[in-house]
């Protein structure tokens, strides 16, 4: 009988019934007792129950291994990863690129693991993938951005209908806190930089003081309340498509202007806030992020200013004296100097102008990493190159 059970292990019900106490009355009481407490004597257990790892234990373990930003994480189990894979246009072991400084292979699996840890939902996966692809573009200079002593953070902006599908915050408080997608996708990007790129503070990331923007810096454009074309359309994507733009930016700096009622006055307040020495733009001119609130945008647009006019104005007027500008790490190139003033941007295209936020007469500006870091916009496309109208399109592949 024992042999019979061995052969059928997997515990066919008839074998178990044959071995039940009632059928074993002819055996000694000891033998009967030994058999009766097990459903299957050849397996180590009769029932196996799988439980999730303890969040506190895993969070502490991962923290001590320098895998996290210090906040608790969701344990990245295989089961959770498989939910993320369903929303990917790639296979788990596909490598999107190598991320510096560690030259880590950015596989879909590793991206998903870090996404799970950050608290992302599975349907955030396409956006996270595109952000990582954007960072991999050589013109972004992730080598420099990750390693620098400057407090540059990865600022990512989402455009298109996906902002609604992911229930992103594009309105009041869009730069945080309080929104799941805004908080966790930005955090996931940072965890990918820790664990795939190796850009952990003091090891691969040498920011002298770091930045709160390195926890998460992720938002959507408030296209409905913008008088101008959204960023992805400006960059050649169809309005109905969705796209992710990654930028190397400092923390945001507020521009409070409640009194100006003309475009010129609002823009002058913005320009004066931007025109500071000590930022990278003052010695290596480059991109500049201007997030205008709908109310400021309405005032500026009401004065008849097109988006390109605003960008031109900021480019022409955001300047600092050369003796203050040329104090950065890299020597200032004289080609950026005009009448002893340094322009903080190389051209109007360096002014990344978007509209976001809720009620209130505020604009937020952020200086960039400088000449050697260009923002990258990636459209949400499927494997065949077609634009994904919805995240759910990924499930149909």
């Amino acid at each position, binding site marked *: 009988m024992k042999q019979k059970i061995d052969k059928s292990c997997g515990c066919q019900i008839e074998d178990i019934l044959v071995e039940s106490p009632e059928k074993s009355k002819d055996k000694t009481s000891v033998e009967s007792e030994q058999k009766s407490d097990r459903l299957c004597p050849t397996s180590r257990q009769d029932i196996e129950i799988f*439980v999730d*790892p303890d969040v506190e234990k895993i969070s502490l373990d991962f923290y001590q291994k320098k895998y996290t930003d210090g906040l608790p994480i969701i344990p990245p*189990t*295989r089961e959770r990863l498989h939910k993320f894979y369903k929303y990917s246009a790639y296979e788990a072991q596909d490598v999107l690129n190598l*991320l510096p400084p*560690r030259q*880590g292979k950015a596989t879909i699996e590793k991206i998903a693991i870090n996404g799970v840890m950050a608290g992302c939902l599975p349907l955030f996966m396409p956006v996270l993938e595109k952000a990582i692809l954007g960072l991999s573009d050589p013109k972004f200079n992730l*080598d420099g951005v990750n390693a620098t002593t400057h407090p540059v953070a990865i600022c990512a902006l989402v455009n298109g209908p996906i902002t609604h599908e992911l229930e992103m915050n594009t309105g009041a408080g869009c730069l945080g806190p309080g929104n799941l997608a805004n908080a966790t996708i930005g955090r996931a990007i940072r965890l990918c930089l820790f664990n795939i790129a190796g850009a952990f503070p003091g090891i691969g990331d040498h920011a002298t003081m770091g930045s709160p923007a390195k926890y998460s810096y992720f938002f959507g454009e408030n296209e409905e309340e913008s008088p101008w074309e959204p960023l992805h359309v400006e960059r050649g994507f169809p309005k109905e498509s969705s796209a992710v733009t990654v930028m190397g930016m400092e923390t945001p700096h507020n521009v409070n202007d409640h009194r100006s009622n003309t475009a010129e006055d609002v823009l002058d307040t913005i320009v004066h806030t931007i025109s500071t020495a000590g930022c990278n733009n003052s010695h290596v001119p480059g991109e500049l992020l201007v997030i205008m609130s709908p109310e400021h945008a309405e005032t500026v647009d009401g004065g008849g200013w097109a988006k390109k006019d605003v960008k031109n104005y900021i480019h022409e007027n955001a300047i600092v004296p050369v003796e203050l500008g040329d104090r950065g*790490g*890299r020597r200032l190139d004289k080609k950026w100097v005009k009448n002893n003033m340094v322009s903080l941007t190389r051209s109007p295209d360096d002014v990344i102008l978007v509209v976001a936020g809720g009620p209130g007469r505020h604009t937020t500006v952020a200086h960039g990493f400088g000449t050697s870091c260009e923002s990258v916009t990636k459209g949400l496309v499927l494997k065949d190159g077609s634009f994904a109208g919805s995240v759910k399109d990924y499930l149909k592949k």
Partner: protein
Amino acid sequence: MKVNVTEREVMDPLADFGGEKIDLNEIPPEISKISLFDNTKPNADTILETIGSELKGIDIIHSEKPAGCGATDDQLKKAAQGNVSILALGDCGSCTTWVILDAIRLEKEGVATISICSHKFASFARNLAQAHGAEGLRILEVIHPIAGRKMDEVVEKAIKIVPNINKILNIS
């Protein structure tokens, strides 16, 4: 009945390395030209000039590159005119990165290199070189800080590494 409670497996978030090993160039037995590759970091020029002034009988080629990003092809081409190229200065994160990455580019072009980094960033520089398959890249350390220091102090720090440079270059 025996019930087994199993904790689900937790996946490792760390990525595998993808860098490919590169062959580093030997220092040529005969050196007639050395390029000094200056990334324009404050006092990088002082360090390179101090070293250059000690290299008697060797033609010096001066080339500049931006800190914090890669050299242009023309800048790299000029630096590659030397039998050996000495790069300075890695004394911050992004400039160290691009001193090392440009040194690797030169090594790939067949030019032996010596990179100079401040001691606070030398460990990162070595890890970076290793990640890019260039373990053993020649990296010399000067005492941090270099930026914001007066010239005579920088010269003093640079002179300390001249014997090491002579040794690497087989100059007696």
